[in-house]
């Protein structure tokens, strides 16, 4: 379980996160929704150690993550797929995937091999293109690659930042369904940040609504989806 309490992250004088508290339940999908600039990405970046928290606590499986570097946090079983299909375009597809498992290649050689085979089964298109440079892939394939890179680290918690960004609806559907299956089958905990609230709430168990760095609603996804007044006030539709 990921437990966040009173988390504050600042960019200079701007409070991007202003006392955020919520928990992400084991084996469930929690989605964080909100308008542009609500602090969604900052939240994920603070959890994975890319940004430093000003105050507050983040505890994961009863260990504090505050002050830890990203390369240490990924070793505790948290994988972050940042915004914008973050792959390294100048490396091949196979290298991008291998990169995600480099840190455990010595101790878990056979498991790493198996994890890589699994992501190729999950996304056969990546297997077909594994010698190509990541830069030559389509947007959807790049997102699949970014997720694969995260999965080969065998995370228990997956932080997904706007996987739908710039993708065709059909591709978004496929990617969200894959994440949903992973969560239901293998007990992966997912924290899904989305601007596309409908897509996210359709698969999520819980929804956290952020506005200007504060949590304004924390409800089961179905309830959040049904609440027309919240949607109108914070999501604008």
């Amino acid at each position, binding site marked *: 379980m990921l437990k966040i309490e009173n988390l504050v992250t600042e960019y200079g004088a701007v409070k991007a996160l202003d006392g955020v508290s919520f928990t992400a339940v084991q084996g469930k999908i929690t989605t964080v929704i909100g308008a542009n600039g609500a602090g969604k990405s900052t939240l994920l970046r603070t959890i994975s150690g890319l940004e430093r928290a000003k105050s507050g606590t983040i505890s994961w499986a009863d260990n504090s993550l505050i002050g830890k570097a990203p390369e240490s946090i990924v070793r505790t079983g948290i994988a972050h797929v940042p915004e914008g299909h973050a792959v390294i375009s100048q490396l091949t597809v196979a290298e991008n995937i291998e990169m995600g498992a480099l840190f455990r290649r010595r101790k878990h050689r056979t498991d790493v091999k198996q994890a890589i085979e699994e992501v190729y089964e999950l996304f056969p298109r990546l297997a077909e293109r594994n010698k190509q440079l990541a830069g030559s892939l389509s947007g959807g394939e790049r997102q699949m690659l970014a997720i694969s890179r*995260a999965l080969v680290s065998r995370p228990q918690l997956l932080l997904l930042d706007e996987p739908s960004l710039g993708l065709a609806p059909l591709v978004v559907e496929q990617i969200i369904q894959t994440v949903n299956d992973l969560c239901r089958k293998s007990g992966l905990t997912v924290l899904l940040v989305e601007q596309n609230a409908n897509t996210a709430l359709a698969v999520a168990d819980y929804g956290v609504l952020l506005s200007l760095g504060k949590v304004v609603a924390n409800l089961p996804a179905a309830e959040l989806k049904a609440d027309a007044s919240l949607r109108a006030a914070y999501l604008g539709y």
Partner: protein
Amino acid sequence: MDQLLSAIFAGTSRGAIYALVALGIVLVWRGAGVINFAQMGQAMFSTYVASNLIMHGTSYWVAFVVALIVGTVLGAAVDLLVMRPLSGKRSSAMMASPAMRGTIPVIASLGILGLLQSAAGMIWAAEERGFPTPVNSLGLSINGNVMPFTAFDIFVIGVVLFTLFVTTIFFQKTGMGLAMRASALNPEVARLSGIRTSSVRTLSWAISGAASSLAGLLVTPSANLSPNTLDLVLIIGFTATVIGGLDSLPGGVIGGFILGLVISFINVYDSPSDVFLAILAFLLLVLLVRPQGLLGSKEVRRV
């Protein structure tokens, strides 16, 4: 015909050395975003260590290996003792602007160069001394015919090609090589993948130090050894890197070989006094046609 061959051989062997220098420059530039002006100062220092060992009766090969180790350690030390503490001071007022963050490490490297040169002057006196070669550096003769190249030329070219081969295998085929490429290309994604980018950066400095000290050992026999001898090598090596593309390892290496040949042809067919003019004209030409260098990527560095 002999003149042409000897220009090609001399140029290739000299170019091989510039290729090594370029390799060192590109490694640190890509790995740490710093142009390291102390690079050939470090090489000068490790070459002095070798020279002293040889003067005290140690064999060339032992001294050769010791110098490479000293060069590697010096490279790592520059990062651990100077560059890493500097980048840790990000929050201080002086390092607040990105321009200063880019400039200060370069100024620091100039400081290290000065420090190494004065230290070498104090320890080993500033007068020039010769440096031996492991094989004959006079014209090689086979069946009584004097060849247009020397055994040392062949040695230099062989050692450098071997080094480039090993480096390529390391970068393309090993996990650590992949970690280094990933860290240089996108530190954020690399860190999220669990790569310890600060250790990787130190490794870039260390390998760069090793390549530079090798260049020092190979170039000194033809230049004599003094605290300042390798300054010129750095300048030419840096020019080669810019010609080839500052962010491309193969580019830097190719730039080194091309520049070596250009210099050699000017030496043989024109006059040594025109060498610098030719280098600058060539640099200008390349920059006009391809500002990013022959193999450099087009992406402008974001400030």
